[in-house]
């Protein structure tokens, strides 16, 4: 046999065919017979659409991330794919052996030993006992729990627990692996192990569906990402685009509404914001230690004398890496009347790999009023040319 026998890429592994899921939430919990009999004929239910007409296909060998904030329906979708929930309408089709890791260690019994639990857990996932026995050493080795495998798992730390569960799942030889928010657990060494196992799965042409609210994970491992919002599929695209949309939706629901109202009759508006650097004709990114400058176009409807500019540099997760305003810098923004511009120079960038968005805020000092506010107004990209890893660049030399 040769590679020619391999399935042509593009064979569907999972087809989500117009899936909707409506949960019936009882307004009063009806779990007893009395209430059931008394409540007959009356409707105690409120319908809650968890998924609405979601449709996509995942090809074999793809790694797809499902992004969404809490309550977006991402876990419901994964449960429908796993076959734990039955869609209200539509259907999910899948091919091959499916292993779902919706909760690590589901089915572990605290009184049983690690060894006993491995066998039970694997049996839940449909693995024959003989096969588990064959892989048992591999599983224990992966989890790094050789010394504790005959201890009851109630004596395990939460990290050990998770490691054992993950080890069982990834040693199952699944064709499709469904993972829900579980990769963020365990210590760093174990996380690396998980990641490399996922990479290995990808190389072997297995299909992976990953549910997460951490865009970084999606960027790291996924070929494609799907964003859900209130049960609707918002975008199904390459990770970069999907993550951008995901953020817009998050901000769209949390802040913009309030701020646009406050900014309605602001005399000042931030227009175009662009980040430039010396090498942009040859490459998009900057290298560690180079500089960038930010050009901000401003328009005003009246003269603004005392604007204060507030600058934040964040990482892609939105964590603030640097925050400063013009007052703290002892810099002064010249009065603007009509059209104007501000330039910020950021020298010697001490950051390693990544995309770094900036947030801008303009405040009128005399009134303390917010003039304009732009989250992720622009971003610059740093390419790490060194072999170091992390977020911040240091000058490190070693002597001996």
């Amino acid at each position, binding site marked *: *046999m*040769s*590679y020619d*026998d*391999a*399935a*042509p890429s593009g*064979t*569907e*592994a999972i*087809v989500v065919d117009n899936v909707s899921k409506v*949960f*019936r939430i009882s307004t009063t919990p009806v*779990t*007893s*017979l*009395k209430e*059931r009999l008394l409540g007959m004929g009356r409707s105690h239910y409120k319908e809650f659409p968890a998924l609405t007409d979601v449709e996509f296909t995942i090809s*074999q*060998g793809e790694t797809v991330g499902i992004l969404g904030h809490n309550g977006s329906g991402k876990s419901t979708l994964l*449960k*429908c*794919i*796993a*076959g*734990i*929930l*039955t*869609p209200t309408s539509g*259907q*999910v*089709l*899948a*091919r*091959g052996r*499916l292993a*779902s890791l*919706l909760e690590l260690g*589901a*089915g572990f*019994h605290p*009184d*049983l030993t690690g060894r*006993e639990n491995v*066998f*039970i857990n694997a*049996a*839940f*996932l*449909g693995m*024959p*006992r003989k096969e588990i026995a064959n892989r048992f050493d591999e599983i224990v080795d992966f989890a790094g729990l050789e010394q504790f495998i005959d201890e009851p798992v109630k004596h395990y730390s939460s990290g050990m627990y998770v490691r054992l569960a993950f080890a069982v799942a990834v040693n199952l*030889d699944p*064709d*499709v692996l469904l993972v829900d928010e579980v990769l963020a657990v365990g210590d760093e060494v174990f996380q690396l192990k998980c990641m490399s196992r996922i990479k290995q799965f990808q*190389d*072997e*042409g*297995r*299909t992976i569906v990953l549910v997460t609210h951490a865009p970084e994970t999606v960027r790291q491992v996924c070929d494609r990402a799907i964003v859900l919002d209130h049960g609707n599929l918002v975008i199904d695209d390459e990770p970069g685009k999907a993550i951008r949309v995901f953020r817009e939706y998050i901000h769209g629901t949390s802040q913009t509404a309030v701020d646009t109202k406050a900014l309605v009759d602001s005399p000042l508006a931030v227009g175009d914001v662009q980040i430039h650097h010396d090498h942009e004709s040859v490459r998009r990114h900057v290298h560690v230690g180079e500089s960038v400058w930010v050009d901000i176009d401003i328009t005003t409807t009246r003269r603004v004398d005392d604007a204060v500019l507030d600058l934040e540099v964040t990482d892609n997760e939105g964590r603030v890496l640097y925050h400063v305003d013009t007052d703290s810098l002892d810099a002064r923004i010249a009065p603007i009347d009509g059209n104007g511009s501000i330039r910020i120079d950021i020298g010697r960038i001490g950051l390693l790999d990544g995309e770094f968005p900036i947030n801008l805020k303009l405040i009128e000092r005399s009134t303390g009023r917010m003039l304009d506010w732009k989250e992720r107004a622009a971003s610059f990209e740093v390419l790490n040319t060194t072999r170091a890893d992390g977020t911040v660049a240091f000058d490190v030399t070693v002597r001996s």
Partner: protein
Amino acid sequence: MTALNQPARRLASNELRPMAQRRSIPRHVREIFEFRELLASLTRKELTVRYKHSALGFVWSMIQPLFLLVVYTAVFAILGAGFPRFAIWVLCGLLIWTFAATAMLTATTSITANASLVGKVKFPRAILPLANVGGALTHFLLQSAAFAGVLLVTRHSVDWTYMWLLPIALLVAVLVVSGLALLLAPLNVMARDTMHLLELLVMGWFWMTPILYQYERAVPFLERHGVPGEVLLLNPFTSIIITFQRAIYGKSEIEGIILLPDNGPFWYLGILLATGAGALIIMALALKVFDRADANLAEAL
């Protein structure tokens, strides 16, 4: 041929199949069969967990019938009721009844007790109540071994012309109990009252089954009240238990007291098969109901 593209090949050869769908009864049975190792694992787990921190472990299972034997012998000696070797008579029916009652009671809460599992892992949920049946059955077999020991020691003579019926009776019992377990477990998800109601029913059911009294005593009583004695056989456990009594106690009458019908082994086989047929109907119904409930179990919990 490389290991590398093996999953890819296998995947391509598999059909696209719906992840959630109604199952026909044979399909449902096949699915349960495919997960038989899980069933075995969970049954083993039941027993392991039960005796985890006890020094004697499963010996406790075996001590129970011996203890009951002593208690019943003493109590009925004081009361003056009963007949010779009354304790052995009682155990013939009591062990199998304990199996049925334990299995039904534990299976009823099997899904509600494993709520987190049902919501997180995909497997045939029917395995959960069936594992409880398996656990109770193992328990029964251990007790039977102890009981057999008692019979040997007391030099009790069983009736070998009836002994071959016992595996059939046990099989029928397993079918009846499994069917009821599969009906009760999803019912308890919909209304938790099922559990409490069942506790009462099981108690009543015990007294309606000829365990402490003899079948041939109940029949004339019923007939005196204008009820045909065969009504007793509508209780699926009657045929099972009187078969055990006939074979192990070994006599249909003692000291002039008529205990059991003396119609020969094939009459017993007949009532067992009739019960078995009823059990199959219950089982089919249970699988149907279970399948219907299955789609919503994860939500209902």
